[in-house]
């Protein structure tokens, strides 16, 4: 199920252009409800977020319409560290998840083809984390990585970790949690492209005097690029905005707060709406810029 949705590019798209294009009032009927929905509950809220981000606060604490550009300057000034940290954590988690997932996806998609049962079994294990509560998984890691959990005691026993050191509450735990939680999102699209990879391309390459490594670099990687691109996007975007892993009740601490946490607490706890809105807009803007540059540079525009 999830397998198809996160698949890079979806099915063969060849039929699309050959499709007869029929009367457009039917198209209008099909599109209108969904598009209205998206406009009403996605575009309008974005606009109202922008309006909120420019509101001014009167002395009695009430917010009023205005063009308070200062909100942006203030929020970015105050929470610059958290913004920067969010993107740093997200990029780190994306890279680690990619390095972790590619060999796994390659084994399942290419090497395990000879044993279809093994292939489906492994695939099910990859998607298994989807089916158990995201929060409970993260809490499980919190316990496992806690100060009196098995990992910390083992590391302390091997004196790889100082006696006063922690894992939970530190940036490393947050990056770990982000990586773990988004690995299936990375693995699946890569698997989907590798699974379709024709072994004969590799044979052709080795026929043309490319060694194993050269074949991998020049044939396998380029052909699985669409999967890599959608996998990294599916990891990077939610990771940059995440606030569960970095929350102090989960894996985070005071030194690992991400922008998501700031938005959440400003919005839901302090009810400082303009700041939360301004930070949301900044976050969204930066993500859109990063994503479009990335997609352009990797030459896979048509994926979107």
């Amino acid at each position, binding site marked *: *199920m999830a397998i*198809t*949705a996160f*698949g890079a590019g*979806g099915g063969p*798209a060849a*039929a*699309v252009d050959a*499709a007869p*294009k*029929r009367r*457009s009032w*039917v198209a*209008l009927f099909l*599109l209108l409800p*969904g598009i209205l*929905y*998206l406009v009403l*509950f996605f575009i309008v*809220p974005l606009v109202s977020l922008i309006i*909120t981000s420019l509101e001014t606060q009167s002395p009695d604490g009430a917010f009023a319409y205005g063009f308070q550009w200062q909100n942006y300057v203030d929020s970015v000034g105050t929470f610059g560290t958290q913004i920067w940290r969010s993107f740093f954590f997200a990029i780190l988690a994306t890279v680690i998840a990619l390095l972790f997932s590619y*060999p796994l996806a*390659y084994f399942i998609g290419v*090497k395990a*083809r000879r044993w279809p049962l093994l292939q489906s079994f492994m695939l*099910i*294990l990859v998607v*298994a984390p*989807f089916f*158990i509560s*995201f*929060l*409970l998984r993260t*809490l*499980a*890691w919190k316990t496992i990585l806690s100060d009196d959990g098995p990992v910390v005691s083992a590391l302390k026993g091997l004196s790889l970790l100082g006696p006063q050191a922690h894992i939970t509450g530190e940036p490393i735990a947050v990056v770990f949690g982000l990586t*773990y939680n988004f690995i299936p999102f990375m693995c699946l699209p890569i698997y989907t492209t590798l699974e*379709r*990879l*024709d*072994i004969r*391309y590799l044979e*052709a*390459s080795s026929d043309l005097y490319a060694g194993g490594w050269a074949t991998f670099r020049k044939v396998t990687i380029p*052909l699985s690029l669409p999967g890599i691109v959608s996998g990294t996007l599916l990891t990077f975007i*939610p990771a*940059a*905005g995440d*606030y*569960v892993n970095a929350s102090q*009740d989960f894996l985070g601490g005071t030194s690992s707060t991400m922008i998501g946490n700031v*938005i959440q607490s400003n*919005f*839901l706890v302090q009810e400082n*709406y303009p700041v939360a*809105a301004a930070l*949301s807009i900044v*976050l969204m803007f930066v993500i859109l810029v990063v*994503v479009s540059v990335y997609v352009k540079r990797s030459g896979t525009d048509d994926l*979107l």
Partner: protein
Amino acid sequence: MSAQEGLVLGKIYSAEPDARRTPPRGRFSLGKWLLPVYSALALAFLLIPIVYTIVFSFNAQTGKSNIAWSGFTLANWSGVCAEQDVCAAFGTSILIGLVSTIAATILGTMIAIALVRYRFPFRSAVSLLIFLPMATPEVVMGAGLAAQFLSAGIPKGIGTIIIAHTLFCLSFVVVTVKARAASLDPALEEAGRDLYGSPSQVFRLITLPLLLPGILAAALLSFSLSFDDFIITYFNSGTVQTFPTYIYISAQRGIPAQANVIASAVFLIAIAIVVISQIVTQSRQKRLNAVR
């Protein structure tokens, strides 16, 4: 050599109609074992917190929190609803999941069919509108909706959660169904019209049944996204508790083992569905191959 050249080469090599083949068996080498062993370890790593969660659903929990192991019991499973809030939150999540899945599946399928089968102005704008929610971080979407409900004076509750869930499921439905629709031969619908099927008959008897696997996959995906969503929900839930928000709130004071029971049960059911559908498709594949 560029990817394009590689593709051209591959075409020359794939004179046979079957596009994929199994790799040939190689000689024994250390490198040959590296990848399988790594993959096994990687999968084991992915399973650690799942196993942990399931194991602790059998914990004879003593205090408020379910962290230290204190003996095996089935009491948590037999008395799931002893912890009333867990059960109530679970029921709310199921209700929200069902309603938003149905709404998102209907709206998304309609858009997907329009995108694949019809030509209309502003096509790329529509595609962008579908893509944007997937590129928007959940906090932004959640905050945006919450700001909107706030300014419109709509009280937060089950309704606002359903609106939010339908929104983020919609794009995933469109993508999934669109992939299926694009892979269908348009000649099938034409054959239907050629064989005296009116437009509504063609839709009912041909288009819809052929899209069904994609629609079903989209619905299952929507449900699992909705069921497990926390971030957007938390912004728009008000006092209503879904299963994830319940866990988030209880995280400070300790989570009862009953939550593990529900998560484990959902997990086992979902895995069973996936396993069964895999077995069905594989045996169907085998039957087809046997006939040929």
